[in-house]
């Protein structure tokens, strides 16, 4: 299978053709080529990916052209066999998808008449055949040539002497026309056109089409005109890339089990967290911004609990401008993009202070890796939604690995405890999946609680930063005012804001602060605030104190931030969706903050 694209318009054809080819790369990518009609006919082609072709293209100007991406099913991909093919005069170029069955006989006849062939392809016969019929009208010559041809094809042809015109034809291979103002397109498939127009015409078997900047004419092979109205395509290019999900954010939340798997891959059995620096480390400082800062705050609890090393978290924008104390903590810098300006600044500052530095980022080769001693990658895959979800989960996984490694190196953990913790870490993808299976339940709760003007989140210990992150997600994408508090701080002020119209989301899983959390829930329900709790499966007590519970599976509390975060991400998503917010691109926000 191959992909073809044609353009006739006012713009420079080259970038449009290349972009179209990339959208068709799924149809094949072992060789590619373009032909452009400017002052003369220019053809460039090569084997390999389209990017390969792009890298070696000379400047080609002209606003008419055709292009081809090939998937060689028979014969080797090579430069000579790549399309478009050119006739003896170098004036006609042809891109073809399909098979010409009687090419051998045609070739013999044409060679006898003195035509010179360069390639082994069936397509080349057709271009010479068109040449043999050419008498100043490409359309007519193509029509005559097709009468002699048997096989399946979608073809696009241009002639140096007829700029502004692309001739196409279809028989058993797909061809669509994209209709624009002052420009028209031809392609094997709709995605190649969607960036430029949403109006398309389908060419049917046995039909020919001619596009010029001004118009589109479709005729049958006998030359009789066919009338056809354009259809409007209602799906966008983005829809295709979202793989059936309504938003990138939802797609990415559903990718968290995979992100955990990939992040653990090959690191767990022997704790191969490459070249890690735990030697002589007496304390750890975690530095980051935004969502990554919440991961850093959770990291403090993880490292203290598992590795028994004092740890603290600080905002990168504050750390940079603070006075350095005399000790030299190991500094862990966390940024999804690896380009966050304040975090990069903090990395430089840490090095200036003589600290060893570790970076955690999702992007290979990002700036952070050049600013730190060791880089650990979260292998979450690309994240498109502005609100970070799977990358946040993957950051936590790397922090668990760091804590285990430090515990092993410093022998604060016995091998029995290490094995137990490793098995629990292996089970984390399941814990995330367990929450994803509750998506419908969470949607119903979002409907119930999501109409409030203000929502409060409370949590303690490792789940306090989880509450902060839950509130941040809700603010970012649903524009509802949300605040998170360490539950013990309620009485010191925030309780004054709690009323029957301010729902409270309380993280009350089985952890060392569970009893305390229950008293805090009592404080807010005494003010008649509706309470949605995140609790542990099998907790019979909690439902009696709160209005609703989202249950996480029973896992050791130090790992609970993972399922709780997935639940809060889904909750924020469902609230924003209910309000019809632009979830993937919230107002005023950008994916990575590269300014200070």
């Amino acid at each position: 299978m191959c992909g073809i694209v044609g353009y006739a318009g006012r713009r420079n054809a080259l970038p449009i053709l290349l972009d179209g080819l990339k959208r068709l790369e799924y149809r094949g990518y072992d060789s590619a080529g373009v032909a452009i009609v400017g002052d003369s006919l220019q053809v460039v082609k090569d084997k390999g990916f389209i990017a390969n072709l792009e890298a070696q293209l000379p400047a080609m100007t002209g606003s008419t052209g055709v292009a081809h991406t090939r998937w060689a099913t028979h014969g080797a991909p090579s430069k000579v066999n790549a399309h478009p093919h050119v006739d003896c005069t170098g004036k006609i170029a042809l891109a073809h998808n399909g098979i010409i069955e009687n090419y051998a006989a045609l070739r013999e006849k044409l060679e006898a008449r003195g035509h010179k062939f360069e390639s082994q392809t069936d397509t080349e016969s057709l271009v010479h055949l068109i040449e043999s019929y050419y008498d100043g009208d490409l359309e007519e010559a193509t029509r005559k040539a097709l009468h002699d041809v048997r096989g399946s094809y979608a073809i696009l042809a241009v002639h140096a002497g007829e700029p502004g015109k692309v001739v196409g034809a279809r028989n058993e291979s797909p061809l669509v026309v994209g209709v624009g103002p002052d420009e028209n397109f031809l392609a094997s498939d709709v995605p190649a056109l969607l960036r430029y127009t949403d109006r398309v015409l389908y060419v049917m078997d046995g039909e020919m089409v001619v596009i010029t900047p001004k118009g589109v004419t479709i005729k049958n092979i006998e030359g009789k005109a066919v009338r056809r109205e354009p259809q409007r395509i209602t799906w966008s290019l983005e829809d295709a890339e979202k793989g059936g999900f309504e938003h990138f954010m939802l797609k990415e939340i559903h990718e968290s089990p995979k992100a955990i798997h990939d992040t653990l891959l090959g690191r767990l059995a022997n704790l191969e967290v490459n070249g890690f620096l735990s030697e002589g480390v007496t304390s750890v400082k975690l530095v980051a911004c935004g969502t990554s800062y919440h991961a850093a705050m959770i990291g403090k609890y993880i490292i203290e609990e598992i590795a028994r090393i004092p740890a603290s978290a600080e905002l990168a924008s504050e750390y940079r401008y603070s006075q350095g104390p005399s000790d030299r903590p190991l500094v862990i810098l966390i940024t999804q993009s690896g380009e966050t300006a304040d975090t990069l600044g903090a990395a430089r500052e840490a090095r200036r202070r003589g600290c060893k530095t570790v970076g955690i980022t999702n992007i290979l080769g990002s700036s952070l890796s050049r600013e730190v001693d060791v880089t650990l990658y979260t292998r979450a895959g690309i994240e498109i939604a502005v609100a970070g979800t799977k990358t946040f989960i993957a950051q936590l996984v790397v922090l668990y690995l760091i804590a285990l490694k430090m515990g092993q190196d410093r022998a604060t953990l016995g091998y029995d405890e290490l094995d137990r913790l490793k098995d629990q870490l292996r089970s984390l993808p399941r814990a995330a999946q367990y929450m994803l299976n509750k998506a419908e339940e969470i949607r119903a709760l979002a409907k119930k609680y999501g109409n409030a003007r203000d929502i409060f989140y409370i949590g303690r210990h490792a789940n306090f930063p989880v509450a902060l992150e839950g509130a941040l997600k809700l603010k970012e994408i649903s524009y509802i005012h949300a605040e998170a508090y360490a539950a013990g701080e309620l009485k010191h002020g925030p309780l004054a804001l709690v009323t029957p119209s301010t729902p409270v989301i309380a993280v009350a899983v089985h952890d060392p602060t569970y009893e305390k959390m229950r008293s805090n829930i009592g404080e807010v329900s005494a003010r008649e605030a509706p309470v949605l709790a995140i609790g542990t499966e099998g907790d019979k007590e909690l439902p009696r104190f709160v209005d609703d519970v989202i249950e996480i599976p029973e896992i050791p509390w130090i790992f609970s931030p993972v399922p709780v975060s997935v639940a809060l991400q889904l909750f924020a998503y469902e609230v924003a969706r209910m309000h019809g917010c632009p979830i993937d691109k919230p107002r005023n926000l950008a994916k990575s903050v590269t300014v200070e």
Partner: protein
Amino acid sequence: MKALILAAGEGARMGPFTASVPKVMIPVGNRPLLEYVVQALVENGVRDLVLVVGYRRERIQSHFQDGKAFHARISYVTQTKQLGTAHAVWEARPHMEERFLVLNGSNMVDSRFVEDLLASRDKPAVLITQSERPRSYGVVTVRGKALVGITEKPTEVISNLINTGAYALDQRIFDEIERLAKEGKHDLPSAVSALAQRTEVEAIRTEGTWVDALYPWDLLRLNATALKGAHEVRAGTIEPAVTIRGRVSIGDGCVIRSGAYLLGPLALGPGCEIGPNAVLLPSTSLGKNVRIGAHTTVANSILMDDVILGPACVVQDGVVGSGVVAKAGLLAASGSGDVQIEGEWHTVAQLGALIGEDVEIGNGVSVTPGTVINERARVESGARLRGTIPSGAVVL
């Protein structure tokens, strides 16, 4: 040409293995069933795929995404009500051009199978094959090469030729579907039978592979078939004194400890850890991130992602769902067993245990052949199990 793949069903007869995944996503040979269909189509140049999804569609969508990783372009149509296969095709109507293929996503097929279907050229066609248990399927009657009709699950023997559920169709099928829907019939075989009354529908007997899994133990047969044809990769860390024979695939990041004995065909997904002196026997698949304890033996079984088996366990002819954790000394050996699925009893000659996702098993538990432990059950140490353990149950 576009292909429509039906993947909306739950597959209730698969017992605990479809508790949170649709049938098409059950792994055999470490790949979901649906991947075999997608691959067979792509190998025949059919890359424009429309998946009709419904039950737990997120699992399918997050695996296949836009199809790029599978050299295809995949779009999704959600079937909101699981009325029937004809209804599923109807829902995908706006995506279909004049002629298209329809395949069932939960059958394991090969490239040859799709090639046979494509050979139909321009007539509507159905692919048929011979079956040992025709009564479980739609039996076809043919006149020469033309289809006469399809009889669903006949009570008496008509023939052993059955419908594989793979069709080449054109726009005319929509008229039949629309008409039958008014009579309350929503299955595609009825619509194709009706079409055969009006125009010739070719019945093509396929020479390719078509394997269907009706019940969980059928998965073991599919798994063995898949492993025989699987591509062999060797990655990860293999400690000294490990024995590996036959076709053994070891994924990225695996660690195989000393003394382990691995006989192919086997497939180990990425990130597995095989403990010292563990024995893995044919034909076994281990999903991603599986840990096998020291001295544990696994034979002819499917262990899905994130399974942990402690030391000294025995698992034979078993299917173990994602996230199952068993402590030391689980005994789930093979034998002849009676299994109840959806209220019906089946006697299976060689079967171990069928264990659903996230089941937790304590130390020294023994399981009678043919026992079904449904998802999320918790079994305390020392228990002896038989029959069917309900989902979420606690066994003391």
